[in-house]
C-alpha cells in the first residue's frame, strides 16, 4: 500500500510532537541566546596575575611618573602616583602602540648606506624636536664627529620657569593649563598666580584663565609690541583700555612670566619686565660623561640657505616643531630628508624616507627636565612592552653614522650622574628618597630602571638663562596640535569624537 499525502502530514505532525518532548528544541533556543554572548568579534580579555610596574610618560616633556597595572607583562591601565596625577592622554599611553596609522616597516640598511655615502662630502643636519635628552647628546656627538655635521634644536634655548615665584602669567596662546609643564605642579601653583590668556581660539586654557583676551589670529606679537610700547594694538581687536590695564598689571606684578613661542620681542619684553632671572631661569641639565664631545647647538636661522645636504629629523618624541616653510629654504636642491617617526602625520609628508620608531611605552630613553622644573632631573622611560620588529632607534642609527655606539649611552650618563654624587634618587615603589652617594652605581642604575627619578639638590642660585633671540617661530604642541600631527591613542575618540568636551583647533 502507498502512503498518501495525508499520511505524510500525520507523520510530520507526530515527529513535531515527539520532538517537543525532547531537550533538543529547547536546548537550541537556549544555545542561540548563549551564542549571542560570545559570537565572533567579541574579544576575550587575557587573564593572569596582576603586577605593578613603573616608568615615566614620554608623551610630553612633563615626563610624569607612571604606575602601570599589568596582566603578566602586558599593561592594561596606567595611573599616576599619589599627588602626581596623569593627564587624560597619559592615561591612554599604553594603547599608543596599537594605533592604526602606525608605520612599521622600512629598509633601514638601504637608507643608512645612502646617508653614509652622502655624509662624506655634504652637510648633514639633525633636527632634534626634544632637546636635552641623552639621545640629543648622542646626536651632538655624532654631528661633532662627522666632517660637516650640524645639530639643530627646535628650541635653541630651553629656559626653565620657576612657578613658585610666578605671580602672573600672560600667555600668548601657550596651553599653560593643557599640556604645558607638569600637570601637578601647575595645579598646585595655580592658586597663587593669575593667568591672562591671549588667544584667538576658545582653548581650554582660555576658558580656565582668569582673563581671556580674544585677539585676532596672528596678532600675538602686535599685542606684545603694544604692551611694551603702550602704543598701537588696534589690530588685535582689543580696545586700548584692556591693553593698558593688562600692561599695567604686568608692570605691577612683582614676578611674572610671559609664556610664548620664542621670538625676539617676547624675550625683550620679558627682560624689560624683569621676568628673566626671576621666573625665567636657566634650565639645568644632568651631568654627562666628560668623554662626550658635543657639537654646538646651531640656531636654525644661522644655517646658510640651501646648504643642508642630508636632514635627519627625530620626531620620535616631539614637544614642538619647526614649520616646514622655515626648513625648506635651508635645504640643498637635491637634499635628502629622512625622518624618524611612528606615523606619516608629521614631516613624513615631506621626507624622502620615513624610518619607523618605537613609541611610548615601547621606547627606551630619558626625558629632559620639564619646563617648570628649575632643577636638573634624570628620568628613564623603561619599556613596558616590546617594540615590534623592524623599528629603528634614532639615537643608535645616527650615532652609528659617526661610528658612535649609543647603546649604553643612558647607562654611561647614569654613571656620570652617580659619579657627580649630587642630588638624590626617589624610588616610586616604596616612595623613598635616597641620597645618591649612599648607593652603588649598579643599584642606582637598577633603581632608575625599576621606576625612580634622580633630582639634583636645590642648592645654588638660579641663573638667568642664555637666550638667543634669533630663532624662527617654533610651534609648541598642545594636545589638539599633537592629535593633528602624530598618532594618538585610539581612545581619544572619547574626547574629540564621542563627546563635545574637546574640539580640534
Amino acid at each position, binding site marked *: 500500500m502507498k502512503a498518501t499525502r495525508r499520511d505524510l502530514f500525520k507523520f510530520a505532525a507526530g515527529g513535531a510532537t515527539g520532538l517537543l518532548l525532547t531537550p533538543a528544541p529547547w536546548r537550541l533556543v537556549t544555545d542561540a541566546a548563549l551564542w549571542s554572548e560570545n559570537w565572533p568579534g567579541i574579544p576575550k580579555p587575557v587573564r593572569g596575575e596582576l603586577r605593578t610596574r613603573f616608568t615615566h610618560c614620554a608623551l610630553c616633556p612633563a615626563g610624569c611618573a607612571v604606575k602601570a597595572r599589568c596582566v603578566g607583562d602586558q599593561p592594561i591601565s596606567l595611573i599616576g602616583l599619589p599627588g602626581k596625577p596623569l593627564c587624560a592622554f597619559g592615561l591612554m599611553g599604553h594603547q599608543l602602540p596599537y594605533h592604526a596609522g602606525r608605520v612599521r616597516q622600512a629598509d633601514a640598511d638601504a637608507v643608512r648606506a645612502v646617508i653614509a655615502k652622502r655624509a662624506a662630502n655634504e652637510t648633514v643636519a639633525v633636527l632634534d624636536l626634544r632637546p636635552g635628552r641623552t639621545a640629543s647628546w648622542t646626536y651632538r656627538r655624532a654631528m661633532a664627529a662627522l666632517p660637516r655635521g650640524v645639530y639643530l634644536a627646535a628650541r635653541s634655548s630651553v629656559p626653565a620657569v620657576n612657578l613658585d615665584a610666578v605671580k602672573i602669567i600672560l600667555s600668548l596662546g601657550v596651553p599653560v593649563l593643557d599640556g604645558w609643564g607638569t600637570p601637578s605642579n601647575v595645579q598646585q601653583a595655580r592658586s597663587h598666580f593669575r593667568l591672562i590668556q591671549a588667544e584667538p581660539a576658545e582653548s581650554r586654557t582660555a576658558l580656565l584663565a582668569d582673563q581671556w583676551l580674544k585677539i585676532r589670529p596672528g596678532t600675538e606679537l602686535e599685542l606684545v609690541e603694544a604692551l611694551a610700547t603702550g602704543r598701537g594694538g588696534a589690530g588685535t581687536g582689543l580696545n586700548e583700555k584692556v591693553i593698558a590695564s593688562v600692561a599695567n598689571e604686568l608692570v605691577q606684578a612683582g614676578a611674572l612670566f610671559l609664556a610664548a613661542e620664542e621670538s625676539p620681542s617676547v624675550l625683550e619684553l620679558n627682560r624689560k619686565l624683569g621676568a628673566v632671572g626671576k621666573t625665567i631661569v636657566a634650565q639645568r641639565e644632568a651631568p654627562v660623561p666628560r668623554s662626550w664631545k658635543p657639537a654646538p647647538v646651531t640656531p636654525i636661522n644661522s644655517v646658510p640657505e640651501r646648504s643642508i645636504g642630508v636632514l635627519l629629523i627625530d620626531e620620535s618624541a616631539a614637544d614642538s616643531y619647526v614649520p616646514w616653510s622655515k626648513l625648506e629654504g635651508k635645504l640643498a636642491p637635491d637634499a635628502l630628508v629622512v625622518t624618524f617617526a611612528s606615523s606619516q602625520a608629521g614631516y613624513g609628508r615631506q621626507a624622502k624616507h620615513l624610518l619607523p620608531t618605537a613609541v611610548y611605552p615601547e621606547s627606551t630613553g630619558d626625558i629632559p627636565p620639564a619646563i617648570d622644573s628649575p632643577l636638573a632631573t634624570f628620568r628613564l622611560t623603561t619599556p613596558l612592552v616590546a617594540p615590534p620588529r623592524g623599528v629603528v632607534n634614532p639615537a643608535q642609527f645616527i650615532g652609528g653614522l659617526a661610528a658612535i655606539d649609543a647603546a649604553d649611552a643612558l647607562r654611561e650618563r647614569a654613571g656620570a650622574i652617580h659619579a657627580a654624587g649630587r642630588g638624590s634618587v626617589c624610588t616610586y615603589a616604596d616612595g623613598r628618597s635616597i641620597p645618591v652617594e649612599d648607593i652603588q652605581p649598579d643599584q642606582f642604575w637598577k633603581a632608575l630602571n625599576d621606576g625612580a627619578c634622580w633630582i639634583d639638590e636645590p642648592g645654588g642660585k638660579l641663573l638667568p638663562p642664555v637666550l638667543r633671540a634669533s630663532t624662527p617661530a617654533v610651534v609648541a604642541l598642545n594636545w589638539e596640535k599633537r592629535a593633528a600631527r602624530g598618532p594618538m591613542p585610539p581612545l581619544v575618540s572619547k574626547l574629540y569624537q*564621542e*563627546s563635545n568636551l574637546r574640539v580640534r583647533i
Partner: protein
Amino acid sequence: MSARSYGMSIDIDKCTGCGACMVACAVENNVPPAPEGVNERKGITWIRVFRLDNGAEGVDRKWAFLPMLCQQCGENTPCVSVCPQQAVQLDPATGIVGQMPERCLGCRYCMAACPYHARYFNWWDPSWPAGMEKTLNPAVAPRMRGVVEKCNFCHGRWHAAKARAAAQGRRDLDPADYVPACVEACPTSAIRFGDLNDLENAPERGSFRLLEKLGTGPKIYYQTQRDWVREIAAAPGGTERAHG
C-alpha cells in the same frame, strides 16, 4: 556585611574638563573606541564631561565643566522598573544600579526612561585596533552589540576588592579598598566617592542633585560656589541656554 549606599560628590568648581575621568573609565571598563564617523549621539562614554556657559557674551562669558554619569538613582529608579526582563537591578547591598548585558534584550526602553541620558547602546559590534585587545581589563567583560551599558561604579573593582579582602579573611571592605577609575584618575580630585551612610561621606551643605524634583533619589551630589552654575545645573528641562 552591612548594606552600603555608594555615592559620589562632585565639585564642579574643581573640574577643569581635562577628560581624564572619561578616558580612565573607558580604559577600566573595556569601552571600545568609536567606529568610523560616530558622533556624540551614538558614542559610548559612561562618564561624560559637559561644558556649561552662562550664556553671556564677551568678557562676561563664563564656563564650567560638569562631569555626568549614571546618577545611581536610589528611589523608584526609572530604568529598573521598566526593563522587561530584569536586566537592570538596584543592588540592595551596594546601592549600585547594575546593568546585565548578557540578559539585556536591547529594547532601549531603559534609555528612554533615563532622564540623565546616562545609558548607552552598543550600536556597533565592539572592536579594537588589531592587538589592542591585549590591553583589555580582565575584570570586566566586553559587551556584545545590541545591548545597553552604563556606569556601574567600576563594579569589576568592587569584585576585585572583595576577593582581596576575602584572601585576607575579611568580609567587609575598607573605603580604601574600592575606588572607581574616574575618582582615582581625577587630577584635581573633584570627584569624591564613598558610602553615603558613613558620616564623612555625607553630602556637604549646599550640595545639590540633578533633577531632584523628579523624585528619583540620585546618589551623585554636586557642589559649586558659583550661583549661575547652580542655577543652570539644577534647573530641569532644557533652557534656551543649552547649546549642542
